[in-house]
């Protein structure tokens, strides 16, 4: 099966809205690629351009070696699962599944065999005679998946396919999806705004914002080494704490926290601290005083909201140059502890920070600053 390539793709909508800006991405054969970003970041537009539902303003999209810019949707050999499933309401499940094959004049008995293969794989055998209106949400989702699978396409496009399922079903279907992909090895592009899906499903993740690709890499790499403030603030739940800091002689100072970061140039920086990397301070670790306000026990951990001295920074979209620190002397901060730690609201803790796990960003450009030490 061939891969899928975006080559400097730009989409400008009427009214000069740039939805996708000079987007280049190569999805390898059989790869599970996630496009993730907040709503309006251009991820769905990128997907719809692959499907042929949006025209490409400039650049090329190819499947294998074949440029598909001007190929009609039906000749692209792709299948798509829509967010609201888009099952044909006037057809039974069987006809929904067979429709694409029938359009392609596949012989009747072969259609029956292929539909059967998909329905037994997805557990739809008992539903073949039903209409979409008689199905539950999860069943509809599976039919939508089946309709795409039965075509045996070159690439598989999914547009937030889990967002209409309830939380429990979503976790289950997420697992099913991953298993299915491991089994079938179809080149897949999966659009989501849910970063849990992004982290768990993808071979690689493309983080988008403002129509621009921000970072591309395996999920763990994107989590461990976000390239800029946007990615840092977007990937991770609860999100990374971003504090304004000043750097002098290799020491970054944010409020009452001082981090020794060798090789750091003087100037304005932003220090990023993941909630799960904050600990109750021990020994001579750099630390800051934390006023506990809200405690959220999760069972496997506890999330604590509170404040520290300093100024919080909002993650800009893209590599926006201007950073606006939120007003106030104290910055809201979120920490995640082991379940054994149970602070009470009003309590004051000393929060320790491991300098090796702190992220440092240039306050002007928002880009991550390479660490020499």
């Amino acid at each position, binding site marked *: 099966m061939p891969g899928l390539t975006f080559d400097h793709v730009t989409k400008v909508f009427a009214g000069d809205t740039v939805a996708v800006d000079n987007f280049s991405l190569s999805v390898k054969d059989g790869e599970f690629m996630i496009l993730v970003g907040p709503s309006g970041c251009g991820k769905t537009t990128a997907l719809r351009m692959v499907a042929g539902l949006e025209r490409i303003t400039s650049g090329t999209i190819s499947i294998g070696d074949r440029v598909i810019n001007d190929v009609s949707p039906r000749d692209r050999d792709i299948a*798509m699962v829509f967010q609201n499933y888009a099952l044909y309401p006037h057809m039974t499940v069987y006809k929904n599944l067979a429709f694409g094959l029938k359009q392609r004049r596949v012989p009747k008995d072969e259609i029956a065999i292929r539909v059967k293969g998909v329905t037994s794989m997805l557990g739809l055998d008992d539903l073949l005679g039903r209409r979409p209106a008689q199905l539950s949400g999860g069943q509809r989702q599976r039919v939508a998946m089946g309709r795409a699978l039965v075509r045996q396409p070159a690439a598989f496009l999914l547009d937030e396919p889990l967002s209409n399922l309830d939380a429990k079903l979503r976790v289950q279907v997420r697992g099913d999806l991953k298993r299915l992909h491991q089994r079938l090895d179809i080149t897949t592009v999966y659009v989501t705004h849910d970063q849990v899906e992004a982290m768990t499903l993808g071979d690689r993740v493309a983080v988008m914002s403002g129509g621009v690709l921000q970072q591309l890499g395996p999920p763990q790499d994107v989590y461990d080494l976000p390239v800029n403030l946007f990615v840092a603030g977007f990937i991770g739940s609860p999100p990374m704490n971003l504090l304004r800091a000043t750097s002098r002689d290799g020491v970054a100072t944010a409020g009452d926290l001082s981090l020794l970061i060798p090789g750091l140039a003087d100037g304005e920086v932003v220090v990023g601290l993941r909630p799960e990397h904050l600990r109750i301070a021990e020994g001579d670790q750099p630390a800051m005083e934390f006023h506990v306000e809200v405690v959220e026990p999760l069972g496997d951990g506890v999330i604590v909201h509170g404040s520290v001295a300093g100024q919080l920074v909002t993650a800009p979209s893209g590599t926006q140059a201007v950073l606006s620190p939120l007003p106030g002397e104290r910055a809201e901060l979120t920490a995640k502890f082991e379940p054994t730690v149970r602070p009470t609201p009003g309590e004051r803790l000393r929060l320790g920070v491991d300098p090796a796990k702190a992220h440092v960003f240039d306050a002007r450009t928002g880009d991550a600053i390479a660490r020499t030490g």
Partner: protein
Amino acid sequence: MSATPVLDAEPFRDADLKKGSRFWLSPWHLVLLPIALVMVLPLLWMVVTSLQTLNETRHYPPTLLPNSLEWNNYRAVLQEAPFARWFLNTLIVTVVVVIGNLLFCSLAGYAFARIKFFGREVAFVLILATLMVPFQVIIIPEFLIVRRLGMIDSLGALILPNLAGAFGIFLLRQFFRTLPIELEEAARIDGCSRLGVLFKIVLPLSGPALATLAVITFMWTWNDFLWPLITIYNPDHMTLQLGLATFQGAHSSTTNLLMAANVLSLLPILVLFFVAQRYFIRGIATSGLKG
């Protein structure tokens, strides 16, 4: 959880309309009953008169209960005028016009609803604007065109100018726009052409709108009088309404025969209305709804 609704199949259910109609008497009926009576009375009188002898029809005050049922009136009517021929003509014209409207208005309505092309909005507004032009204004030009086509005094004159209409285009465009566009996108990815999408996805889901258009077109065409009056001269090419008018002129004194003829011409419309009245209601009730 995103707020995007799941496409719900079969958005129109008869049960929705029937809800609440189980009460057999409500205060509203006290208001509606007398009005219904006033509406029905002329119809009833027509039927009764058509079954009376000529003497009974001249009785004063008029009687609503005939002494005997003169079915012979109907036989006489059918013998005196080519009603069967007129009925057949009307049926041919109406059926062809209804099919033409369903087909051409679907095509045009779909193009206006979904296909982006230069001047789409302007063209649509122009078509809508023709709804405001009274028929009397275009009678003469239309007559000249039809004459140039050599269709005067033939059924073609009644069919061709009415094969598509602004109203149908408007009605279907509005309905098509309420259908979820993802269905059409899915069908295009599944391998449908634009026409395939229209015929395999859009039209099967447009039953209520198509039925409404069919019923309304049927009524308009069946009852049309002015245009046939202008274009048809040969009694063999007349439609029921036109034939009835000529029959009326010749039988102004024999009221019972006239009423029998009226009943005959009205019957198909009455039947159609009883069969299809829910489509009127649905067409009106659903045109503003979007799931």
